[in-house]
């Protein structure tokens, strides 16, 4: 339920969440609408530091998230045991995945923080075919492997109808990634969920890093968005702050 300002019933106040004031250059460009898709950001390898960028570009309701695990971790202090909660959140949709890990004193804060970190770490997943190029890509384009800690996860292309042949943990991540069929193989201490999930994430990250003959063509370089919109970024953002002050006084 929303709480409206009872002093001014005629004014409709927007929720605070909608007021995103971007702090980074990329954020400003996204808010203005100069950048339309995530792929433009990926093309220039720009770091994403504000989670609202992902929200605006991908749109609400597309990215689903799920808590993989909440583990209580403890530290011994003079005053006793200090417990904190570590939340692992995986999110994804539409060929993208994100993984967020956050530790906090309360479960809710940990989950919230992990969702934000998951949004910040969203990566594109390359999908390909096992055999005939009929329909949409459904599996990994080639054999890839990812490693974190002692856990290595290997993904092998599978024919249609195979489904995701993986353990419960990587299966969740792969489902969010939008991969329909894959064979996996893992090694190492897979019961450490943190490393297991990070290893599959690393594996998915490598799908676009693998050089295949489609990429042999010379790249036609385009201007980085910062270069392209340099005059727009040069304009000061002071006007925005003044507007806010006026509102609160009235």
């Amino acid at each position, binding site marked *: 339920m929303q709480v*409206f300002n009872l002093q001014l*019933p*005629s004014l*409709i106040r*927007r929720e605070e969440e909608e007021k995103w004031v971007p702090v980074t250059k990329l954020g400003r460009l996204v808010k203005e609408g100069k950048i339309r898709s995530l792929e433009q950001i990926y093309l220039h390898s720009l770091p994403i530091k504000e989670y609202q960028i992902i929200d605006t570009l991908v749109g609400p309701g597309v990215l689903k998230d799920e*808590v993989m695990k909440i583990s209580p971790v403890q530290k011994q202090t003079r005053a006793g045991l200090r417990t904190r909660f570590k939340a692992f959140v995986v999110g994804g949709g539409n060929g993208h995945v994100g993984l967020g890990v956050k530790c906090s004193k*309360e*479960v809710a804060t940990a989950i919230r923080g992990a969702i934000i970190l998951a949004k910040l770490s969203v990566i594109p997943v390359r999908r390909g075919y096992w055999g005939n190029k009929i329909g949409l890509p459904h599996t990994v384009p080639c054999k890839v492997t990812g490693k974190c800690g002692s856990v290595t996860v290997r993904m092998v292309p599978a024919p249609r109808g195979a489904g995701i042949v993986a353990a419960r943990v990587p299966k969740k991540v792969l489902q969010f990634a939008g991969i*329909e069929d894959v064979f996996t193989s893992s090694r190492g201490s897979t019961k450490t969920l943190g490393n297991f999930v990070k290893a599959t994430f690393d594996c998915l990250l490598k799908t676009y890093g693998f050089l295949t003959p489609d990429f042999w063509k010379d790249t036609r370089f385009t201007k980085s968005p910062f270069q392209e919109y340099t005059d727009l970024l040069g304009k000061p953002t002071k006007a925005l702050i003044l507007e806010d002050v006026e509102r609160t006084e009235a």
Partner: protein
Amino acid sequence: MEGASAKGDSMEELKGLRISSLDSDSEEDAAVVEENRKAVDVEEEDDEDEDEDLEPVMLGFLEKPEHPWSLLRQSFPSKAGGAPAWLDPVNLPTGRHCVCDICGKPLRFVLQVYAPITEKESAYHRTLFVFMCPKMSCLLRDQHEQWKHKPEQPSRSVKVFRCQVPLSNPFYSSEHSKNDGTDRPSSPGAVLCDRCGTWKGDKLCGRCKKVHYCSERHQRKDWKSVHKYECRQVDNSLQLSNAGSILTKKLWPEYEIVDEDEGEFGAKVTDDSQNNAMSLVSRGKADDSMDSIIDGFKMDIDKRTFAIFEERRSRAPDQVLRYCRSSTAKPLWPMFSGRLPKADIPSCKHCGGRMIFEFQILSTLLYYFGVDNGRDSLDWATIVVYTCESSCDASVAYKEEFVWVQLY
């Protein structure tokens, strides 16, 4: 006999003939002839109806809500996806009504239509809520159930509820709503489940008694993922910000349903569409046996019906809902097979009176809900809702109505 000497060109002849003449020449078993005859009758009816003045149909389109408060229950919205804006916020459906009778999982909210009846005082505010199980396997099993004639306890995976309240009621003020965001309901509603936000949360966590659930299933899932750690915290600290409600709920994306009269959209140029219909229909097999002609004909009826459906729909391709509440109204069937004959519409289980067609949901909704095109993902041709003609008042606030699903 025409049938016996059928070749490619006589197929064209057959098309030109009136459908009823086919019956006299058939050597088929009675069943096939019966079905065709039945089909013939209905088709003839349809043809006649199309020539007469049609009932005015309201079309529903999905849009993003205008304001953040447009979809709250005090605005009496018509919406699709998200959580339902319950009309009667206190006497929500419970128990068996909330779950899919086939798999036992709580149903997901599809859409609600605000359809008051001006003539009836007790239905000053009236809303119809549609829920369904998101699993295709349940929908396939549901088909078997819906074809059963007069089952004692229907076990469906798609359910429709009707709720109506008079002008003066304990939930909303009798004055006209100002529609500017300042409306408030007269009393707070019942607490909803923390996991799904759809159904009534009448079950509590046994330990902390702070978190509400609609069903044991949701309680178990929440415990496993989040509440196990939080429940303990309540003992130590007094605050409990429910972490389960932060996660994105498994709900379909939320939209507002905006309605327009179908008459606003003029009929498109019919020449092209008729050619389309004919080209779909004339692709028949040149075979000697009557069987294949009958089969081909049956298939052609399906295609012809679909062509008619598409032509009507093309006037407003974005339409999601077709609303026409009248005793003579008929739904626009996309397929010939799988229709509900008028004679088979059951009677209202609350008052025993007649039930009439009220509205139908088209498969365009699936696109808006972002349902993917996998093998096992949800799909239907149309979902047709029949409601009590007299919109009876019964003891229960949310009365179940009859729903018919047609699959491709």
